Structures are given as C-alpha cells and as structure tokens.
C-alpha cells in the first residue's frame, strides 16, 4: 500500500540567499529510483517538509527543461519555513509532488508572452519563464517575451542575477520596478506599483499576446484590471494562485474556491476561469 502522505527524501545541494528572509534551495532526490521516475511540468507545486516542523507548499521554481535538480524558493514566515531556512547544504528535506495543473504552454504557441510578477511570486513565473525561453531557443515556438517584475524595495527583489541575465538577453524585454520609497540611489528600473507601471509605462500590445500574472491576491486583481484597460481579454490572462494547502491532494479541504480545489484544479487559472469562481480568494 502506498502512502500518499509520505514524502520522498531530497538533499539540499545548494542554498542561495535571494533577499533578506528569502532563500532558494537546489534539491536532488536521494533515491535513484525516485529520481529517474520523477517528472513535472511548469506551474506545478510540491509539499516540502522540514522534519520536525511540518510541511509547506511552494511551486517548483525551476524549469522542467533543466531536470538535473529542482528548485524552490520561499520566504521565512512561519514555523516550517523558518525550520527550512535553518537547514544547510547537504541536509535532507522531504518532498511530495508534483501536484496541480500546469501552464498551458501548447496554447501559447506562436504568441507573445508577458510575465508579470510581484514580490515573492517570481519563483512560479521563473519556472515558466525559463521553460518558455528554453523552448523558444529550441524551436522558436513563442514570439516576444517580456517580463515585468516588481517588489517592495530593491533589496526585496529575488533572482537578482537572473533579472540581469534576462535584461541582457535579446528579444526579452525586462521591466523591473520597486514600490515608491523602496528604491536605492543606483536603481535603474521603474518606480511604482506593478499594475501602474504596466499600464502607464510599459503599455503592452494585447494583440496575439498572453499575460501571465503572479503575485499577492490584491496585485492580481489590480493587474487584471490594468490589463483589461489595455485591451487584454480574459482568456489572454493567466495566473497561478497560492492558497493555503496542507495535503495538496484535494482532501484536506482548505484551498477550495467554491467547488474548485486549487491543489487539483489549479494552481494555474485563466482570468476567464477565475471570473466564473466565487470571489473568495
């Protein structure tokens, strides 16, 4: 009998301090069998355990096109994340997953993509960004790729090196912004909230474009509104939700929005799907 609640063990191979209180883990399965049978798609999430503290839900922040390890990125807020943050390289954590649905990459063929993220919500986007960049490299299946990313202040920006990398890339437009008051003297990006910068400074063309939004609920709401004003249609807007979860298996009953379980039916939703749901997220 297999126990769906029992995690597989993974070793932390590398830890990167992204920002104060935010860390990235590189993880590898300890069991070869598990490693060889494991696969995931972008957008999916997992349950990470710090033994002795419990489990916490984060998306898989790495791209399935780079399968040698998986990454997760989290902020130290609760008991589990604090316990995770106290781990060092070489330590063991538990992993269950992958769970949930994926970004509909096939639907995006031939389209321009805009990734819009705020704060700690870049990790889920990072997975799909690299996935799309890698796929575009392979067969040019996507058009132009833009990334709009904002955080409260410069030091809260995560993946600073990759932001620079994307900034340097040709045919990638990187728009970075910080909230007013969060800038430093040498800040070369925008200043303002993400929806505002998007609408007033970046002004993307909705034509043949898909916008992928990730962030806190309030940001998603305002960004969708901004996009609609720019002429985006609901089916052109995709987001991923991060409701509180315990099991990730559609059983523990806390991530539901109406009869939609974010852990099974999500976490990726189009704006159309969201609009059909009760407004309780």
């Amino acid at each position, binding site marked *: 009998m297999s126990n769906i609640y029992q995690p597989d063990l993974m070793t932390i191979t590398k830890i990167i301090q992204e920002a104060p209180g935010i860390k990235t883990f590189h993880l590898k399965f300890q069991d070869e069998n598990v490693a060889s049978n494991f696969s995931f798609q972008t957008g999916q999430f997992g349950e990470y355990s710090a033994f002795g503290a*419990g489990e916490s839900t984060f998306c898989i922040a790495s791209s399935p096109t780079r399968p040698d390890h998986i990454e997760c990125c989290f902020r130290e807020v609760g008991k589990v994340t604090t316990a995770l943050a106290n781990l060092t390289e070489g330590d063991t954590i538990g992993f269950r997953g992958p769970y949930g649905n994926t970004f509909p990459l096939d639907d995006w063929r031939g389209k321009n993509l805009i990734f819009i993220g705020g704060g700690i919500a870049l990790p889920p986007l990072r997975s799909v960004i690299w996935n799309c960049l890698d796929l575009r490299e392979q067969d040019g299946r996507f058009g132009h790729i833009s990334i709009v990313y904002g955080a409260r202040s410069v030091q809260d920006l995560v993946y600073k090196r990759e932001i620079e990398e994307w900034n340097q890339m040709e045919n990638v437009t990187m728009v970075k912004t910080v909230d007013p008051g969060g800038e430093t003297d040498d800040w070369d990006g925008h200043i303002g909230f993400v929806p505002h910068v998007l609408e007033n400074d970046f002004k993307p063309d909705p034509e043949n474009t898909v916008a992928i939004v990730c962030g806190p609920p309030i940001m998603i709401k305002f960004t969708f509104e901004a996009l609609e004003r720019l002429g985006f249609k609901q089916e052109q807007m995709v987001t991923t939700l*991060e409701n509180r979860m315990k099991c990730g298996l*559609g059983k*523990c*009953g806390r991530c539901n929005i109406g009869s939609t379980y974010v852990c099974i039916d999500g976490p990726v939703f189009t704006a159309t799907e969201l609009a059909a749901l*009760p407004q309780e997220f």
Partner: protein
Amino acid sequence: MKTATLNKSDLGKCIDLLVQADLRVIAPRLQPRLDEDGPDAIDVLTFTEVDSGEGHQVGEGLLPLNGVKEFLFAKHEPLFAYEKRGKKIEIIPVHHEYPQTVIIGVRPCDAASIASLESVFSDANAGFEDPFFTERRSRTTFITYSCTAPDASCFCTSVNLSPDSAKGSDLHLTEIGDGRLHVEVISKAGEAVAKQLQDLLEGEGDQAAREKAGAEVSEKLTRIRDSAPIMDWLMDTANFDDEMWQRLGEKCIGCGACTFACPTCHCFDIVDENKGSKGYRVKFWDSCQFDHFTLHASGHNPRDWQYKRYRNRFNCKFKIYPEKFETPGCVGCGRCIRACPVNLDITEYMAEVAHKAANPSAMKADQDSE
C-alpha cells in the same frame, strides 16, 4: 437480495456471536455515569468498541454523538515516523493492521455519510487514494438500523434519504413490530456477517411491513425541505454574495462543533509531532470554521468573516459535494443543529435558499426597496 427476520431481543446475542468470531464490534452504548450528577446530567450515547452484547443500545436512542466517521477517518492518524541522524533522515512507515470490524446499529444517515467520505478519500478524487481510509473501509461492515422515532432536528428526507434507507449499508435491520426485525442483506460483506448470525436469523423477511414502517417514520419528520433547487441556486455565482449569508451567519461564533460532529466533514490538518530529533507526522481533524484554516502566510485570509466560513460549509454540503463527487454532502442527521450553541440551523439556510430560488424576482425587489 436475501431477507430474513430476527428477534430484537437477540441483538445482544448477535454482538456476542460477532465478538466470538474475532471481529471488532462497535455498537452504540451509554457512557458510564456517576451517581447523582445533578440536573445537568444527560445520557451520553456513543459508538464504542464492545466486547459483549451486554448493555448495547442498538436501535435504542437516536443518534450516537459520534458518527461512524471516526472509525474510518481517525480523529488522529500517524502517517509515518522519522528520525534525524545528522544530515540523514530515516522515514519509518506505519504498519496498517486494521482489524476486521463490524459496526452495528448504524443509522441510515450515518451509513449514507460513508459513501460521501469515500468519494473524497478514494482514488476517484483526482487519483489520490488515502490508504488509511480505504484500508479501514475495506475491513468494515455496517449493520444499519432504520430509525423508529426521529427527533426535531432530523431532516434526512430533505436530502433525498429516508429514515429506513439502506444506502451505504451491508446488512440492514428494520423494526416491523412484535419485537421482530426485518433483515436485508445488501452486500457481500453483509452476507458474510449474516452467515455468522445465521443461527439467529429466521426465514424470510416481511418486505411490506418494512416499507410501511419506514413510511410511518418519514411522516414524523418535521423539517421537510426540498433540496433540489438549492444546488442550482448555489451554482449562480451572483448568489455567492447574497445578503442572506451575512444575515443568517453573523451569529455564528465559529466554534466548529458542527463540522466535527458532522458525519461527512472531512477537513484535516497535518503536523509533525517532534521529540528531540525524532517524531512523527500526524493527520488530524480540522474545521473550515476556524479563522486560521485558510489564513495565508502573508496574513491574507480569503474567508475573513465568520459568515463566509459558514457559507463555505453550506456550499460544501450542497454544491461542492454534488458537483465534484456526485454525492450529497449532507445526510440530514441533524447533528450540527443539535451541536450548535447558538442555534444556527442549516435547514433555515435551506429554507431561505429554497425560498429565494422559488421567488427570484420577489427577493430582488425586496432588496431594492431596502
């Protein structure tokens, strides 16, 4: 379907036989009481593991306080143990050796609830099977017993069940007068149990008497609602923000008694219980009525008001279950009504919704005029 009759007075012997057959038997029983407890004292009827038929309350009283839920979906379930050794961790699986169990004296509503739980925990739900539930389920036989006297809080007929329903049952007993019971074998497991009891079973049952008895009890139910329009009304997202949710739900104090007493509520939480460098992960009941249930780490809470939590519970019973699992989420046992300290009554919600569903324009006008 095989039928037979059984003397009601032989129920104790039935239990004895089952115990002798090395089965774990769970039957309703009164909890022991101290003498002269004063006027507060009340009889406490619960399903308990018994080792003989003595003092059983099968067919007596109405509903035991606990449903049969806790015998399948344990209120506390260790998932596995672990031990930390430096950087390494060893996971020690839990051994599942659940005894073959018979639960006797289950009321039809409780029996029906098992199907609802099964739909959540079986692999039919997104392909994930809760091994603890399904293992227990496969080793448990339910002997149900038709209700003879519903109380004021019962409303099973409102959710398409009846006091004599055999849904979810393996072996079904109905009183047909003269101290006789009509016995129906519903499933294979029931047949196996019936075999153990065959010395006590006699001839054929009396189908007509059984139906008559059932119908008589149904008529005694006072809370009769039509649940059919409820789901349709709930499906309309606009109604999600209807004024009734707050009006009816504001007195809710979020105690969670309804969810814990409910035979179909299945929410749980998982934590690690740690002792130094080892411990175990445990799954235990939780409730959607608690404020931190949906609280995000960021401090955002999608269900910040208590009435929203109760709205979720109502939706869960009448929309999510039917829509997602195609089973009713409510079996009309009335435990939540009895348990509620502030008399929040799910049937009032049902009535309100049914009324709104029946008179959409009238309600609209009402609101406009306000």
